C-alpha cells in the first residue's frame, strides 16, 4: 500500500519538475523571495539581540536555530504538500473538482495533499540547512549523539503534527462556499514557531502548545537538541500528534460525508 503512494508521489514530483521548469522566472523569484525573507529575518534578529542578551533564556544562536528549523519544516511542507492542501479551500470543494479524488482508488486526503508539489521550493533548504548547522554549532552548547537522535525522531513527529494541523485548518472548506482566507491561516500561525515559547503569556503558551499545538512543532525538537532529552516532552509530542492525527482524520471524513459535489 505504502509503495503505491511513494510511486504516485514520485510521478507527481517528476510532473512538478517538468511543469515548473517551463516558468524559470517564477522559480527564480520564488527562491529570491525566500533568500530575502531570510535576510530580513536575520536583520530583525540582529536588531533584537542588539538590545537584549537573550530571549526567554535562549541566546542569539539558539533562536536562530529555532527559526531555521521552523523554516525547514515549513519549506518541506510548502514544497511537498501546501499547495494541494490549500486547493481544498480555494478550488476543489467550490468547483466540485474534489469528485476526481473521491473516484480514485487512493485515499482522498493523501492524494489531495500530494497533488501539486512545488519541487523547486526545496531549493530553499540549501540556505536553511547550513544556517541551522551553523547556528547549532555556534550556540556553545554541547550536543551529544542522544540529542541528535531524539531531535531527528521528534523532528519527524513534529512534521507529521504540522501536516495534521494544516489539514485540520483547511477542513472547514467542506462546510463553507467560499472561505479562501483559511488557506492563509497557517502562514499566520507559523510566526509563533520562530520564537521561544517563554516569551509568550501563559494563556497563549497553553493554547499554542496544547489546544492548537503549532509552537510544539518547532519548540520541542529544538529543546531536545540543546538540552538533555526530556521523556515527558517526547511522550507529549507523540501523544499530541496521535491525537491530532485522529481528530484531523475524523473531521476530514465528516467533511467528506458533507460534500455534495455542487459547484459554483
Amino acid at each position: 500500500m505504502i509503495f503505491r503512494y511513494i510511486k504516485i508521489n514520485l510521478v507527481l514530483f517528476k510532473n512538478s519538475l517538468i511543469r515548473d521548469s517551463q516558468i524559470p522566472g517564477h522559480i527564480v523569484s520564488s527562491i529570491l523571495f525566500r533568500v530575502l525573507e531570510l535576510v530580513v529575518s536575520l536583520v530583525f534578529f540582529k536588531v533584537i539581540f542588539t538590545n537584549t542578551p537573550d530571549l526567554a533564556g535562549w541566546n542569539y544562536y539558539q533562536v536562530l536555530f529555532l527559526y531555521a528549523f521552523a523554516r525547514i519544516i515549513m519549506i518541506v511542507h510548502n514544497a511537498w504538500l501546501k499547495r494541494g492542501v490549500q486547493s481544498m479551500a480555494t478550488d476543489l470543494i467550490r468547483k466540485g473538482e474534489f469528485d476526481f479524488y473521491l473516484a480514485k482508488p487512493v485515499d482522498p486526503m493523501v492524494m489531495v495533499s500530494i497533488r501539486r508539489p512545488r519541487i523547486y521550493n526545496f531549493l530553499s533548504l540549501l540556505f536553511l540547512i547550513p544556517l541551522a548547522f551553523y547556528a547549532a554549532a555556534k550556540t556553545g552548547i554541547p550536543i551529544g549523539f542522544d540529542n541528535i537522535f531524539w531531535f531527528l525522531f521528534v523532528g519527524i513527529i513534529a512534521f507529521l503534527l504540522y501536516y495534521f494541523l494544516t489539514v485540520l485548518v483547511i477542513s472547514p472548506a467542506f462546510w463553507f462556499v467560499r472561505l479562501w482566507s483559511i488557506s492563509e491561516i497557517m502562514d499566520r500561525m507559523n510566526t509563533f514557531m520562530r520564537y521561544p515559547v517563554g516569551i509568550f503569556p501563559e494563556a497563549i503558551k497553553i493554547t499554542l502548545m496544547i489546544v492548537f499545538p503549532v509552537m510544539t512543532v518547532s519548540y520541542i525538537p529544538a529543546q531536545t537538541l540543546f538540552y538533555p532529552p526530556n521523556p515527558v516532552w517526547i511522550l507529549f509530542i507523540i501523544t499530541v500528534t496521535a491525537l491530532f492525527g485522529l481528530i484531523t482524520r475524523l473531521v476530514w471524513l465528516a467533511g467528506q460525508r458533507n460534500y455534495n459535489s455542487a459547484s459554483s
Partner: protein
Amino acid sequence: MKKYLAYFIVSFRSFSTYKADFLVGIIFNLVYFFIYFSLWKAIYSSSGNALIGTYTLASTITYYFIITLIFRLDISGKIWLGSDVWDGYFTNDLVKPWNAIAVHTLITLSDLAIEIMLYLPFAAIIFMFAFNYILLPTFAMFIFFLITLILGIFLNFTINFCIQALTFHFGDQEGNTNLINYIISFFAGGIFPLAFLPENLRNIFMSLPFRYLFDFPANVFLGKISVSEIWIGWAQMLIWGLIFALVFKFIYSTGLKKYTGTGR
C-alpha cells in the same frame, strides 16, 4: 460618474457577501500584533532598557497597533490588474464604456472599505487588550495621521499599479509582486520601526519613498514628527505618487500596444 458610483456599490455588495472570509482573514492577521506585543515586552524587560532608539515600550506597542491597521489598508493583495491581464479578462474592461484603470481602482477601494469596516471592532479589541501600552495622539495629530493614511493609500496605489502593469511586458508577475511587496514592507517599516536600524542602514531606508507607507504614518500618530516635517512629508508623498503615476502611465500605454487579450 454615476456608472462608477454604481460599480463601486456593486463591488462593495459583492465583497460583503463573503463576510466570513474577511473576518477569518482579519482575525488571523491579528496574530502578528500579539506576537510582536509579547516579543517586544520580553525584549524590553530582559534588556532593562527603557528606550530602544527613541522608542519606549509603549511607543513600540503603539507602532505595531498602527502597523496592524495600515496592513489592512495595504492594497498589494487587492489589485487584480496583473492577473486579469495575464488571464485575458482585462479585455472585458477594455471593451466596456469606462476607464479600465478607474474600474480597477474602484474595486480595490470597495475591498478596502469593507475590510476596514470589519476591522474596526477588532482594533477596539486590541486597544482594550493593550490599553496600558497604547499612546493616543492629540486630536490635531489624529487628523494629520488620517490625511497621511489617505496619501499613503494613493502612493501605494501608484506603486502597485506599476508592478501589476509589468504583466503586459513580462507575463505573470504574481511571484515578483509578492517579492517586491515584501521588500517594500521591510523598507517601509512594516516589520519593525526604522529607528531600530543601525544609523547607516536607517539613512538609506529613510531616503526611499516606501517609508511613507508605514513608518511615517505611524510616527505621525505617535507625535514623533513635527508639523513642519509632516507638511514636507506630505509634499514628498505627492511627488513620489506623481512620479510612480507617470511611470505607470508609460508602462500601461506601451503595454496596451502589446496586449493581445489571449490569456494563458
